């Protein structure tokens, strides 16, 4: 598959640490959405997505992330995107999504 997801619950950070690798596009977005929702179903907690190896995301992927943000917001929880590649960061900036999802660039 074009996308891979690894995740674990960090007791210390009290949140999910998720790594998405590969391409989140019109084809793989439904699979990613399902996975992230299953993770949150297990424990409704905040989530940090490590995007170091996220090579591509398109508007279908953004729409999916916005859905996750909305779900988390209902419980005052946060979604953070960490270490996005330049092209992903650029997309977040031009769409204004960097104001809805917190980006941690380092």
């Amino acid at each position, binding site marked *: 598959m074009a996308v891979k997801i690894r995740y674990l619950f960090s007791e210390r950070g009290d949140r999910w640490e998720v790594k998405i690798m590969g391409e989140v596009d*019109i084809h793989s977005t439904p699979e990613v959405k399902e996975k992230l929702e299953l993770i949150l179903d297990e424990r409704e907690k905040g989530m940090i997505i490590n995007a170091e190896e996220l090579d591509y995301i*398109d508007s279908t992927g953004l729409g999916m992330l916005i859905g996750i943000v909305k779900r988390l917001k209902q419980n005052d929880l946060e979604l953070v995107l960490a270490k996005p590649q330049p092209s992903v960061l650029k997309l977040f900036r031009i769409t*204004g999504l960097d104001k809805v999802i917190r980006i941690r660039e380092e």
Partner: protein
Amino acid sequence: MEIFKLNIPNKKEYVISARLAATSVAGIHGYDIEKVDDIRLAVGEACNNVVLHGRGSKSIDIVIQVEEKFMKISVSDQGEGFIHGQISSPTPEDYMGSGLGLYIIDSLMDEMVVESEQEKGTTIHMIKNR
């Protein structure tokens, strides 16, 4: 002038082939990484639109024309077509998962022209300067 043509089934799993083709042509012609990434996303979004909104179309045509100073990419379908208005900035707070595609293309490319005729289909022309 060089022309590169691709015809893929109008299915979500093929969009990646169009992206790959466009990025490889841009790479061959020495476009830098940032521009290649812009082209990849713009072509991806144009093809997504056919898959999502061009149901009547069996396939998607991608034509890439490489000129000295720019690259022109056209993505066409024979779907329902639509009436294309003004592109406006999205407001992500109330964003419901639609209305981003054309805006992204317009932002990333140097020129975008939408040609659409109802019942005939749509072509999105995009230009990326070198």
